């Protein structure tokens, strides 16, 4: 079953989307600056940890254990959460999750709802669904507020408005909050957001959140954040609805020890998140008196069933892979056409949605491995990228167009050459002859046809030299070992 994911169906594939975004000089500057700042901060707080690699290994082992026993941990969570006064709902896909959320909101006659930043609700397109039923959503995370007021899309899983700079944020706030004289200092902008949001926090009695971790042992839910707006959302309303992917569960409360160290250091370069909220069901007279949690599958079971790709689900959404990715650095997140951008998006999105556009994502990587190196749960992203490329090639080869496509033919021909030294020598000879029309006056190749034209659009190519190495070797071998003395058994 293909999961339903809210995305722009007609979003161009990665190379085309990237080409457009590369022209946006301001965006590229913003993305480079922001990722440079976060990466530098991360490096400081990671390098100071003597046991960082051990923490990565521990995090990886905990998450792998979760994947190996997901069914029992989820049931354990459901029981513990229910015991503590929470109500657990199961959603097989995005439509299911949205229906459950809307039914709950309607039961409370909610016309407005608060939201704390959640990528899972972006994944299922909750905001659009709520708007369609006449329920107004107020994003309360500063970055999500910027995105919402700017009618934009998140471009990063931790810092959704990373592609906007202060001046751009000011312009959005000036327009949407009717503050023509707003300054562009961080204090001005946060003060504006604060008074805009405070009124809503105090008025609206229902909130929707995501979750960073679900603790199976205790039925607790954990949300970490930097601003305190999340804390407001999680504690002020009377009714709280949390939507979380089923993979967010961890076995024990003490497992938070690992992730509350690795997540903030990886995500924002902080030693600890300023706000770490953990709640267990409901508590009379304190916090929301009604708590619902919607556990969302939406394709995750399918990913779990693929032994080579299931490590994708170990992800704790820190975004470190996005910050170090040299591809993301150039394009920002919108090129990926998905709420999950960067390296994690390149492996997660095509598994959540099998579309033509998402099939371009596993190729949006030079396989440089920077993502794997920083991943706090050791997801071997390059390995999964190659695995997914393999699936895409097989799917393409099953179609007539794919079978006779240039890539497939080229690869089949190359594969038949690469099993024989003689065939390679012949191909080299043919290459030397065939390249002649393409060699320019400079002695270099400046234009190549078809798919190879991508190379020469910005790069010259040196032509094949007159002599291959193997040809030189056969001469060298003869010259350095001129005669073989038969008397000693032909040994040189």
């Amino acid at each position, binding site marked *: 079953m293909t999961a339903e994911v809210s995305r722009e169906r007609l979003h161009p594939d*990665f*190379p085309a989307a*990237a080409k457009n975004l*590369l022209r946006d000089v301001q965006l590229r500057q913003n993305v480079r600056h922001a990722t440079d700042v976060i990466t530098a901060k991360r490096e400081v707080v990671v390098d100071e940890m003597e046991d960082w690699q051990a923490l990565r290994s521990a995090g990886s082992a905990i998450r792998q254990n979760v994947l190996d026993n997901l069914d029992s941990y989820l049931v354990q969570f459901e029981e513990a959460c229910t015991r503590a006064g929470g109500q657990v709902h199961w959603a097989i896909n995005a439509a299911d999750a949205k229906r459950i959320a809307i039914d709950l909101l309607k039961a409370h006659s909610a016309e407005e709802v608060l939201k704390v930043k959640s990528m899972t609700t972006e994944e299922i397109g909750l905001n659009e669904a709520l708007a369609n039923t006449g329920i107004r959503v107020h994003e309360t995370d500063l970055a999500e507020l910027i995105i919402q007021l700017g009618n934009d899309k998140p471009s990063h899983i931790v810092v959704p408005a990373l592609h906007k700079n202060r001046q751009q944020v000011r312009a959005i706030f000036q327009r949407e909050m009717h503050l023509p004289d707003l300054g562009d200092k961080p204090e001005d902008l946060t003060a504006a957001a604060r008074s805009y949001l405070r009124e809503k926090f105090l008025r609206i009695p229902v909130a929707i959140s995501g979750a960073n971790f679900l603790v199976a042992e205790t039925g607790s839910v954990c949300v970490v954040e930097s601003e305190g707006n999340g804390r407001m959302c999680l504690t002020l309303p009377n009714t709280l609805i949390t939507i979380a992917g089923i993979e967010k569960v961890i076995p024990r409360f003490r497992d938070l020890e690992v992730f509350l160290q690795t997540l903030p250091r990886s995500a924002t370069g902080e030693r600890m998140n300023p706000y770490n909220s953990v709640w267990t069901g409901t508590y009379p007279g304190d916090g929301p008196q009604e708590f619902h949690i919607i556990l969302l599958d939406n394709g995750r079971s399918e990913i779990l069933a693929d032994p080579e790709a299931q490590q994708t689900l170990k992800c704790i959404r820190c975004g470190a892979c996005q910050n170090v990715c*040299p*591809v993301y*650095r*150039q*394009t920002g997140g919108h090129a990926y056409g998905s709420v999950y951008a960067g390296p994690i998006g390149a492996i997660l999105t095509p598994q959540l949605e099998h579309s033509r556009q998402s099939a371009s994502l596993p*190729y*949006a*990587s*030079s*396989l*440089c*491995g*920077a993502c794997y*190196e920083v991943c706090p749960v050791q997801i071997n992203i390059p*390995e999964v990228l*190659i695995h*997914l*490329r*393999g*699936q*895409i*090639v*097989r799917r393409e080869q099953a179609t007539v167009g794919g079978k006779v496509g240039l*890539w497939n033919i080229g*690869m089949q021909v190359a*594969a038949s*050459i*690469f*099993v024989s*030294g*003689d065939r*390679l020598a012949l191909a*080299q000879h043919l*290459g030397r002859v065939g390249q002649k029309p393409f060699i320019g006056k400079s002695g*270099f190749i400046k234009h190549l046809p078809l*798919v*190879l*034209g*991508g*190379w020469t*659009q*910005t*790069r*010259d*190519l*040196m032509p*094949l*030299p007159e002599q*291959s*190495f*193997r*040809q*030189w*070797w*056969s001469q*060298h071998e003869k010259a350095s070992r001129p005669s073989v003395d038969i008397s000693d058994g032909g040994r040189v």
Partner: protein
Amino acid sequence: MRISLFITCYNDTLFPETGKAVVRVLERLGHQIEFPPDQTCCGQMHWNTGYLREAVPIIRHFVDLYRDADAVCIPSSSCVAMIREHYLKAAVQSQDSAFIADVESLLPRIFELSELLVKKLGVEDVGATFPHKVTYHASCHSLRSLHLGDIPIRLLRQVRGIDLIGLQHLDRCCGFGGTFAVKNADVSSAMLAEKIGDVLNTGAEVCTAVDNSCLMHLYGSLHRHASGIRTMHLAEILAAEADRGEEE
């Protein structure tokens, strides 16, 4: 010792000078080089592009050819990474126990050139002279798959007359990535432009690396913009001798 050379398909085809330099360095150090003429490719292009099934016969061809080698020298970290990181998986998927055993036995005898010199042969000074300003580009596979660290730099430091200049953002990819460079040519070019900026900032005459794939990519841009900077594989610098002058 007896060293089997796997020159790699693109060095064989495009960069014979690198191969000659490897032979010169190793022969100068007194080793005996053999070159199995039936050698072709490690299978990296097929494997990394997703043509996994098509890569398997290429992988088998390599394993069959080098099964009995004492040590295999490969002047390309990405090909070594391909072998170390993916061959066993390919063999396991084939469920052929002889193939699996061959790969397991061969892997410890596979060496990238600088690794062979420093870690296996214990040499840092190979007797080279190269009186030029040089900057070293660390390929992603050399850093993150082979974990070469400063091994290539240690070899370069012993080269007489060399003026070694550090490259900023050493751990950042140049944007080559094999078929990535054509499938995502625009992003690849943007990555390259940043890397070229760092190379130009060094003021070096020569940019070197342990991978000609990165160097071909870098030189493609350096040549187009007539920047006057050359690229040379590490082996070519290590082969350079004062009395021989430079090989062109």
